[in-house]
């Protein structure tokens, strides 16, 4: 599904990613943890194609294609989805309009007709139940005036409607209360599938109690300094990040 090889990227001349290696196979769930400023969001932005990052070395292969050569929309149309750490508010664009435009963009790439109005509504209603969102949110502008937790749920709603092949969730659990965390986690779990891979960036073990990852990676100072299974996350919760820094290099997945 996704193969990241020796990825180096910098922002404004400052190197942030310093040789990331990671392989994500279909159906796998990977968690990325690591201290603030380690480069986790940078990695997800580079994968999604945001401007302003310069890839200086390495490559990213997604479903056999060179991902870094594609425009952001081409990546999205091919099934790459990024749930943003800080979702933006878009005045004047209603949620339902966005969902439909996004779904049709994917369908167009897949050679399908625009979605039928009734099928679309049924799909959206169904997915809203999954994240326990009220229908009134459909007619509100994207994220405008949403609470922090509502914005995060809205990202998962978009994911649920678009059914991506590779979902990268950047701290979707941050800022959620305990109930909302469970709802979002259940939503994401429900979307777990054999042909879908999920990369979750998180600071907390809590999320991983709900969605048990196949792999846990620690990203620190632009490198994956340790990889393991779910036990690694528990270890981190107990002892913090300081001990992994001392780990020898090369223990990456």
């Amino acid at each position, binding site marked *: 599904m996704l193969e990241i090889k020796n990825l180096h990227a910098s922002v404004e001349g400052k190197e942030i990613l310093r040789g990331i290696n990671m392989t994500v196979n279909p159906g796998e769930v990977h968690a990325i943890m690591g201290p603030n400023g380690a480069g986790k969001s940078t990695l997800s932005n580079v994968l999604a194609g945001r401007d302003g990052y310069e890839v200086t070395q390495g490559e990213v292969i997604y479903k056999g294609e060179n991902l870094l050569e594609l425009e952001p929309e081409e990546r999205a*149309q091919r099934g790459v989805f990024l749930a943003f750490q800080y979702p*933006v508010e878009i005045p004047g664009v209603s949620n339902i309009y966005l969902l439909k435009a996004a779904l049709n963009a994917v369908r167009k790439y897949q050679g399908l007709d625009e979605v039928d109005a009734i099928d679309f509504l049924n799909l959206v209603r169904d997915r809203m139940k999954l994240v326990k969102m009220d229908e009134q949110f459909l007619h509100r502008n994207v994220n405008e005036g949403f609470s922090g937790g509502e914005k995060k749920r809205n990202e998962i709603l978009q994911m649920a409607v678009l059914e991506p092949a590779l979902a990268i969730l950047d701290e979707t659990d941050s800022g959620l209360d305990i109930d909302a965390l469970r709802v979002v986690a259940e939503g994401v779990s429900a979307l777990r599938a054999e042909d879908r891979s999920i990369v979750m960036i998180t600071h907390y073990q809590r999320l991983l109690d709900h969605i048990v990852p196949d792999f846990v990676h620690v990203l620190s100072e632009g490198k994956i300094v340790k990889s393991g299974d779910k036990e690694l996350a528990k270890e981190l919760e107990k002892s913090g990040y300081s001990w992994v820094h001392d780990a020898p290099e090369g223990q990456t997945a």
Partner: protein
Amino acid sequence: MKQLTEITTPFGEVASAKTLPGSELGWLQQLRDKARAQFERHGLPAKKVEDWKYTSLWSLSQEGFSHDANAVSLDKTELAHVAALEDAYRFVIIDGRFSAELSELEDLEEGLSIKPLAEGLDNAQSMLGEQIDLEKPGLNAINTMLMQDGLVLQVQAGKTISKPVELLVISTAENQKLASHLRNLIQVEADAEVTLLEHYVSLADTEGFTNVVTEVKLDEKATLNHFKLQHESLAHYHIATLASKQAAGSNWHTNNISLGGKLARNDIHSQLLGEESHVTLDGLYLVTGDQHVDNHTRIDHAVPNTTSDEVYKGVLDGNSHAVFNGKVNVHKDAQKTDSSQSNKNLLLSRSCEIDTKPELEIYADDVKCAHGSTVGQIDEQHLFFLRARGLDETAARSLLTYAFAVDVLQRIKSAPMRQALSNVIEKRLPKGA
């Protein structure tokens, strides 16, 4: 003293040559004479007049407009196509003349009176000219000396009119270079309410000049929901004054949309003269090519406890030029005034130009006044978000431009009106997705 010798026009001669409505009314004749004297003294405003600094009437003064129109008619189906509202009373002015035949004014609701200017003048003495300043640099004097038609609308006390009224002013290709001087008088009596859309449109690339003054008088607790859609050809001049006087507890909601014209200028004046009166003064301008649009608004909070809320937005492309000047004047003793104003501009090209200026004059101390203006491009974060959801760059840009503009229409309470106006905006700015 003749200040504007550099601009000369034949408007004065036209006034002598023409027979205008109400010539038998002494008070009106006096008013027209006064206006003429004012015009002879000052002519058209030149750019050295502060309020006209960014808008030149030089090319208008050189056009040589005609004041005589051939009678024209229009297919009813074509008319339905031009109108913005489906379910509305329709008052049609075509090439400067009211057309009873094209209008739809049968079975007016009780309490609603609609007349063309010539018929409404008899009872207009207490209203006509009362809301505007004849001496203000601009075209109020020309309009007063030459006004030949318009809508006179009155709503009786206590009546809420359910169907909206569309004043449809059409310029056709039959009469090129026609100047129309229109005067609309809108009076809503106590506790009454009505919705009015002023809609100015050209068929084909007609060259012309619309000079309109709309006067609004709102009695106690009256409500006027007012919309203006100016959508004339790119060869058209549109110069308008819209002025209201509001009594206690009255509400005026107005939304002024400028899409067309070579040159469009609006002077909008809200006078809050009674306590607890409120005005919402919104506007949207979309200009491209060589278009020029200038909105000058002024709100006078003359007494305590009045509120105003103003949002103007603009989208500029090509070599267009837009001007926004928003004055808010809080008079001495107008305590507890609550006023907010914003002007936001989206620039889509490098060669367009915006001059925006809020002007607050506050002579009371216990007031809340907020204002701000912004000029910017499409937000890169918004753009990336939409692209990361699969929309291609062109579609994402179009959608964001449309969204920026239509945002101001979301403040319109009536759903059919909001829809009708959004549709017009969408034709101009396709959402693109």
